[in-house]
């Protein structure tokens, strides 16, 4: 009577199961970690954009106050923000109102297409701005003699 010998099958099965389980676990880990990190990246980019946007509005407000206290003035300030958001370039601009802020005349936008980030902030009515945009690196904000605040110099 010939006895069946399953030893070879057992080794192969062992390998297959071990590699299979490890692969499934690893793939799951990588996918979940990737998704988590991606959402964290976007969150960090938005936080950084928020910080830049908030500070830009503060600077614009201060420039407006300086202008209000004089008969006429021209001021330019060089701003030192990170030149990239998470390694990607970004643009800041003053643009006419967005849908979400239809009760204000102007908005400040920070967008980085590569990161799918576009942050929009309302510009207070009393601050006069001119439509303008610039890249994040070497950013300067100017308040011109006509009272308008712009990113593109007077």
């Amino acid at each position, binding site marked *: 009577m010939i006895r069946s010998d399953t030893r070879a099958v*057992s*080794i192969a099965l062992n390998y297959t199961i071990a590699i299979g389980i490890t692969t499934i676990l690893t793939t799951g*880990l990588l996918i979940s970690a990737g998704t988590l*990190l991606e959402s964290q990246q976007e969150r960090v980019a938005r936080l*950084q954009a928020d910080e830049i946007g908030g500070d830009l509005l*503060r600077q614009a407000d*201060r420039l407006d106050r300086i202008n*209000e*206290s004089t008969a006429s003035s021209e*001021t330019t300030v060089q701003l030192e923000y990170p030149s990239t958001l998470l390694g990607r370039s970004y643009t800041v601009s003053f643009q006419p109102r967005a849908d979400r802020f239809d009760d204000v005349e102007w908005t400040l936008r920070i967008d980085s297409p590569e990161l799918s980030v576009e942050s929009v902030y309302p510009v207070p009515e009393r601050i006069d701005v001119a439509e303008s945009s610039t890249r994040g690196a070497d950013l300067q904000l100017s308040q011109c003699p006509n009272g308008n605040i712009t990113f593109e110099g007077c």
Partner: protein
Amino acid sequence: MVTRDSRGQTILIMAILFAVIVLTTVILLNTLHAPANVQTQSQSSGLEDVELTEAQVANDMERLFLVHTSVATTGEPLPYVEADGGPDSRFGDVVENTSDLDAALRASESGAVVRVRYNATRSQEGMLVRQNDSTREFTYDGYSPSDQNWTVLDDAEGLPRFSMNVTEAPDDSDSPFEVVVDGGNELTFDDDGVEGAGVDCELSYPIQVDATAGIGTISNETEVCGTFDLEPPDSFDLTFENGSEVTGTYTVSGVDADAAGSDIDSNTYDWQHATDDDVIVNPAFDVQYTEPAITHNATIVLYDEGSQ
């Protein structure tokens, strides 16, 4: 079942898989940067310094102007005031000298360079009327004693300064003393205090009134009562009515204003009661502020509504 021969292969495969997991995790984490610090504090302090500097310059220039035009609280003329040329004759030089001294101090303190220049083109001329004897009435000597109303400024186009210290109140039975701006508001002084132009102040005398561009405060030695607005129109007369009922000191300046009576001498330096015609009543200054990250050029008109 793992035999002894295959154990090494299994360990090797697991080690490779572990290394792949670690490397992948490192690569993914490497793309997650911590946000670089936005240097908001240093930037806002730079512009804040501009604001503070400008306020200091305005304050310094006002004191310089008051001293130079000799209508500061002492009312004493300084040696460099040239009476025959009017109070503004050498003011530009004085401003420049002061600015040079100030710039040297500021540069050593903050690294910013600040220059101030007198701007004759933007400065406004007009008429200055003042009295520094607190025992005298609010009337003009050249008028008939029976005439209770005195047109202090005639056809003025601005009211840079308006300050009064009314030392003695009208009696209950007297007519109240009134400061009337034609086309604007009026302040009424009676035995209870001051009212009108947006205030109702029951204050004890002496009462101080201090306004720039028609807007100012009413106070006495212990209390600040409120803010009034005379709302001077583009062209107006300013009149003291029933000025013989009160006593005190005052300084009133009007842009492009005339003396109402032909008997009022211009450019007189009688410090008890003087009216100066065609003098600088609202000086302007150019301010230049420079530091590595900020360039700022501004013109300050000292007694403009927005320049204080």
